[in-house]
């Protein structure tokens, strides 16, 4: 125990040496090292939480720097979890920080979460949020939740001492069309800072067993109107039992995880589209469309940026729809393009086979 470092904690009768030892023994996982994560992580690490896990598959982009305050311009393109770990170790080298530069999914969620005492939800999409919520519900692990919209934030602690879960609040996720893509929503840079600190505060209260933990209540904050209120949430036994009784599933919703995607059914005849086939040259079937460019995935990832230059040269007015065999590589390319100046790019959800059928139905007599 480094008494000098934590002297101001130890001086508090509510914390003391025993409380500081509780913090040192605690294991907290922060899912998502974005706006909320960057904020919460700094205080958890400073406070001396003994083991801090960070999970994030994403890389730092220029537009993150307005609010994700662990990163600098030199970090652009680097993985967030690994970069955050480096920065946080400089802040406190006496604790264990575990960075996992992976995506949380059905295959690893329960295993990863079970290693920790408390899970902090710093995600920016409903798919991961419902996954964490259901996993925490099954594992009976506290989930310190927060989410944001422009100038507003919501905070709560779920599954704490058998309290309500996120699904008691929102049993089902919103429909796909209801959710704006996160890259389209503006957010005041200080908001995740404030709300992330509230999450860190709840974590410390849980570990130290002090104060009133925000379980069974939703804290709503609007930084524009200075409005804040605490709303009572009732536990929904039926929903909790249902989640605990079934296997983990991913909710099927188009939000941040999928970046800009488009389905064939959403394409309007009047739209000016430039199709980009990113399959390699030896991949079939051959797709013929007006205004189609073939720019293989390998060329887009190549170090000479030849593929990216080709995409960049397409006129801005065109909606660029990128497709591959099944949609996987197209999403990766759109994610990559999101970090560049190239805009108006969408990944086709369907693959080349479905596109061929669609062409037959829509473009041929």
């Amino acid at each position: 125990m480094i008494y000098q470092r934590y002297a101001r904690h130890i001086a508090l009768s509510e914390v003391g040496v025993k409380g500081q030892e509780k913090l040192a023994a605690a294991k907290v996982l922060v899912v998502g090292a974005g706006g909320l994560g960057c904020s919460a992580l700094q205080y958890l690490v400073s406070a001396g939480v003994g083991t801090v896990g960070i999970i994030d598959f994403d890389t730092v982009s220029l537009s993150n720097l307005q609010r994700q305050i662990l990163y600098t311009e030199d970090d652009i393109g680097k993985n967030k979890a690994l970069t955050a770990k480096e920065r946080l170790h400089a802040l406190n080298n006496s604790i264990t920080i575990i960075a996992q530069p992976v995506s949380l999914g059905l295959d690893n969620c329960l295993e990863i979460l079970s290693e920790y005492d408390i899970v902090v939800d710093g995600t920016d999409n409903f798919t991961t949020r419902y996954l964490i919520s259901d996993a925490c519900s099954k594992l009976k692990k506290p989930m310190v939740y927060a989410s944001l919209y422009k100038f507003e934030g919501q905070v709560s602690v779920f599954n704490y001492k058998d309290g309500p879960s996120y699904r008691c609040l929102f049993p089902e996720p919103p429909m796909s069309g209801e959710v704006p893509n996160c890259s389209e929503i503006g957010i005041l840079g200080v908001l995740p800072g404030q709300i992330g600190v509230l999450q860190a505060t709840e974590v410390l209260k849980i570990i130290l067993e002090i104060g009133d933990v925000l379980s069974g209540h939703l804290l709503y904050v609007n930084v524009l109107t200075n409005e804040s209120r605490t709303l009572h949430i009732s536990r929904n036994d039926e929903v909790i039992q249902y989640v605990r009784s079934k296997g983990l599933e991913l909710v099927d919703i188009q939000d941040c995880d999928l970046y800009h995607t488009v389905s064939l059914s959403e394409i309007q005849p009047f739209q000016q589209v430039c199709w980009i086939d990113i399959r390699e040259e030896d991949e079939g079937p051959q797709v013929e469309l007006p205004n189609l460019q073939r720019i293989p995935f390998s060329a887009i990832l190549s170090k000479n940026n030849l593929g990216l230059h080709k995409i960049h040269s397409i006129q801005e007015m065109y909606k660029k729809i990128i497709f591959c065999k099944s949609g996987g590589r197209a999403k990766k390319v759109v994610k990559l393009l999101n970090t560049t100046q190239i805009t108006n790019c969408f990944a086709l959800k369907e693959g080349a086979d479905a596109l061929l059928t669609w062409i037959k139905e829509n473009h041929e007599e």
Partner: protein
Amino acid sequence: MDLKLRYHGRLIELFGKPEEIISVRSETADSLRKELEAMDVRFRESVFLLAQHHKIITRDDTLTAGDVDVFPPFSGG
């Protein structure tokens, strides 16, 4: 009874206003939800919470005249 619906998050843009006063027949949270959904397709197509007197109201929770907050889920992080 008259209720002042106070919208939050994306619902302010969806309804084009931060609040509105409506007259309803409902006396419980569930019947209000159904009445709103029947009244406007935008409610039918949205996930939202209703809150009154510092409480998220659901099922047969009793409504009283006055302010009702309508919250959508937020996704940002």
